[in-house]
């Protein structure tokens, strides 16, 4: 049963919808538990089935080492996102602020998106690829607009319009690929396609579509607004799961479909990476809303992420997967704090974090660790992950790009330090007593923070990813 994890997720989603119908309002808190249990179960299945590989539906659905890892990443991201959503949905928040409505649907829709992402990783032909991609994306439009107020709806609308534009481009490109080769199977396309103007046009359109999901410059413009307008847990989910899905999509398209041309791709990708990280970082400097700020931070992280594609390096695959893992843990740790603070106080501006270290020192510490990890400060995993990616770029001979990336890390440190400064250096602001934190969130925060520290120091995680995936792409280029 190679599809067991996906089926578990979909089953849980339906279960949630059904149970939701029969539950009394005040008992609906159990829904969050069901959702998390479902994801945990799927996680268990995934880990349990890990070494297996195989195909279903005539090769349209397949699993291999990299697929497993992507699914793990999606499940992990969803699990943590669910954990940090629960407070907001169950109304454990400052009374002045509105809780999100319709828990059952919320969880179910999030799980559908998760299922879409998981299928995306397993998709092997254009149909499954496209459908799973849309399954992963459309629920996000809904979640973005979940709050139903002006801002949330506006961001939802922007997301849906631009998302549709992006998927049209992607699809147009895929159509051209199909037309060039007459194949629907990704690897078959990869084997038979030859460079021609039409191929490069198709490649460019596909890249545009992927870049939208990964928020690469100049396809990133939606991110800031959507992240800002969406409910905070959704922003968290967008920033990790959607990005991981984008990476999965990029793996599918770049390695399977255009693997033979990957070497030729290095220079444009390098430029794209350099522009993305620079633009993301520079724009992040001047942000005041923390969610918008995290959007730009996420944009720059995407710029680092795609360094792993350069130079056809066999270490690129594990490096990117590892970095994605690190990024998920780190970013969600930060978002746990953002969600918590917004739940408790309704505050989202960076200045409003002032003095947090005095009233809630442990939370501030967790936030600081997360931000330092995002900035790539050793010995946190963010550093290790970035280091491996930079190493790929360096190996490919893109020393200038390593320099750009490293200098960008410095710039990013500047704005991460802005928050740390508010928390640690500025005097106490409005709060004089410690804000309460729910056990779920506390545990989530503790686990993500510890993991952020630990997986950089303990080599096992990287070594495992590496051992399983290091030469995964060799079949696609030879």
């Amino acid at each position, binding site marked *: 049963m190679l599809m067991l994890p996906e089926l578990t997720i979909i089953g849980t989603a339906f279960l949630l919808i059904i149970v939701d119908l029969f539950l009394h309002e005040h008992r609906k808190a159990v829904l969050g538990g069901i959702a998390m249990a479902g994801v945990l179960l799927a996680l268990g299945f995934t880990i349990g089935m890990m070494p297996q590989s195989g195909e279903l539906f005539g090769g349209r659905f397949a699993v291999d080492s990299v697929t497993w890892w992507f699914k793990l990443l999606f499940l992990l991201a969803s699990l943590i996102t669910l954990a940090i959503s629960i407070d907001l949905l169950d109304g454990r928040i400052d009374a002045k602020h509105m809780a999100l409505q319709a828990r059952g649907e919320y969880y179910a829709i999030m799980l559908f998106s998760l299922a879409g992402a998981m299928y995306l990783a397993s998709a092997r032909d254009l149909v499954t690829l496209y459908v799973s991609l849309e399954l992963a994306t459309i629920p996000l439009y809904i979640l973005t607009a979940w709050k139903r107020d002006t801002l949330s709806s506006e961001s939802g609308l922007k997301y849906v319009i631009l998302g549709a534009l992006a998927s049209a481009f992607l699809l147009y490109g895929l159509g051209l690929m199909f037309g060039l080769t007459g194949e629907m199977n990704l690897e078959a396309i990869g084997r038979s396609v030859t460079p021609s103007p039409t191929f490069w046009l198709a490649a460019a359109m596909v890249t545009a579509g992927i870049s939208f999901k990964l928020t690469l410059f100049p396809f990133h413009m939606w991110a800031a607004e959507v992240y800002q307008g969406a409910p905070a847990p959704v922003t968290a989910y967008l920033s990790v799961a959607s990005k991981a899905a984008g990476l999965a999509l990029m793996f599918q398209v770049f390695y399977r479909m255009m693997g033979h041309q990957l070497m030729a791709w290095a220079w444009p990708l390098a430029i794209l990476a350099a522009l993305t990280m620079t633009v993301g970082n520079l724009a992040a400097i001047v942000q005041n809303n923390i969610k918008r700020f995290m959007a730009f931070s996420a944009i720059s992280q995407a710029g680092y992420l795609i360094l792993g594609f350069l130079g056809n390096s066999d*270490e690129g695959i*594990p490096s990117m997967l590892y970095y994605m893992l690190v990024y998920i843990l780190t970013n969600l740790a930060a978002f746990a704090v953002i969600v918590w603070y917004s739940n408790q106080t309704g505050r989202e501006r960076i200045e409003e974090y002032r003095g947090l270290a005095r009233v809630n020192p442990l939370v501030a510490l967790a936030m600081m660790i997360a931000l*330092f990890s995002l900035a790539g*400060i*050793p*010995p946190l995993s963010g*550093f*290790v992950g970035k*280091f*491996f990616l*930079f*190493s790929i*770029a*360096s*190996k490919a001979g893109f*020393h200038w790009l*390593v*320099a750009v990336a*490293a*200098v960008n*890390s*410095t710039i990013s*440190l*500047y704005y991460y*330090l802005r928050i*740390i*400064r508010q928390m*640690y*250096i500025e005097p106490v602001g409005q709060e004089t007593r410690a804000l309460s934190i729910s056990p779920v969130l506390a545990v989530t925060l503790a686990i993500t923070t510890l993991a952020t520290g630990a997986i950089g120091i303990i*080599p096992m995680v*990287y*070594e495992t990813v*590496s*051992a399983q995936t*290091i030469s995964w792409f060799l079949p696609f280029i030879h």
Partner: protein
Amino acid sequence: MGLVSWLIILPFLTAMAVLMVPAKNWKAIRWISLTGTGMHLMLTAFTTMKFWALASQDIPAMKTATMTKLYFVERVTWFQTLGIDYFVGLDGISMSMVILTSIIIFAGTLASWNVEERTKEFFVLLLTLVTGVFGVFMSFDLFLFFMFYEVAVLPMYLLIGIWGTGPKEYAAMKLTLMLMVGSALILVGMLAVYHASGLHTFDLIRLATVNYPASLQTWVFPMFFLGFGVLGALYPFHTWSPDGHASAPTAVSMLHAGVLMKLGGYGALRIAVYLLPEGAKEWGLFFMGLTTINIVYGSFGAIMQKDLKYFTAYSSVSHCGFVLFGVAAMNLMGFKGAIIQMFSHGIMTGLFFALIGMVYGRTHTRIIPDMGGLAKVMPWLAVCFYVGGMASLGLPGFAGFVAESHVFMGGFFGNNFMNPVAMKTLTIIATVSIVVTAVYVLRGLATVFQGPITNHHFHELTDATLTEKLSTGLLVATLAVVGFMPWYFIDLIEASIFPFVNRLQASGTMVAFH
């Protein structure tokens, strides 16, 4: 766990112990910190004795060696796929820097005795920072080195930002960012070397067995040297130093100027020169020129400073110039001088900043013209200040002279691949600084300590307390011991310097000037 690992981990364990104590017991916290750093000092002393016995015997054997010999090595595989190891050990240079750091942090803990605001966080950050410093000095794996390097830099932001004075956020940010840009350059060079070596290892010693292509060395060497140079206050990347030092609290200034700036010189020698001898040959004269500017410019810059900390910071710029100057001289005496200068400047500035903190704690001003005649009311501090001043102007009998004479000789004696006339000329220009140093040291100190007491409040001030005496006394004694008995120190480091010189000599084609 071996000796070296204990030396690295001990401050961190102390920090963890401090974390366990409730914040309101700030007195207990500082005693724990003092105990931890005191234990570290004793452990360092013990290690030094063991090390000295081994290393001084190896001097004859090392004269022709091109490979650094390490002692007390510990090596554990870490990220196997990338060839990253936990690889720590000691050579003479590391040992001397460890001694320096251990002394400074002990004295710094004593000098922070009166930190009463957020004591716990202060000591946790301070001890974390020191862990990073020790890590840098003892790791011989580039990755590990870099990791510790950044750990050593970053807590500085909070230490200055929270406990600093004046425009502290600005200064802290500037310092952190400039140093990080430096480390960005190092990272680029490090990865380039790693991939060029083809050895698939970050082991510094093994990486240094490779002859890298000249084209690589040409651009990687300046990356390294500039990157480390930022931390070593290389002109024109030194401006973080005056602002940072001026804003930092006492112990942080001590540690920063005393130890952290040494990471720059240490890295420039250990990594830039050792890995890339041909690049070093090519760029030596250029950097020698820059460091000459450093030396002279820093000392002239110090003359007109009004704030004691700016004054000391510019003097540091000048003195750290000697370190990099020695490195850029690319010969045995230059390297040796650079190491001794690192040590002596570390102790000396540590002393200066400790004293400035103590004086400031009493007078509540650091503005030189606002003070006067303080020697009358605080003779101990005055004497220590003068000792520091005399050491900084290179008075024989203190470590500064040993260092500066080495550096000057190194610059003047030259080597067989850099233009001798240019080297000699630069050295002569650099020597001018000894006069300028005398001018600003004496002017500054005379205004502060001599003459009649200018402010009647000063009559009520008291001399150093016991902890302060202990702290400054330790530093003064160190300066004098190295100055009077330099042979111990030289025996300690000499064997480890030959490989640098020999690798330089063995590499590439010689450009004959003689």
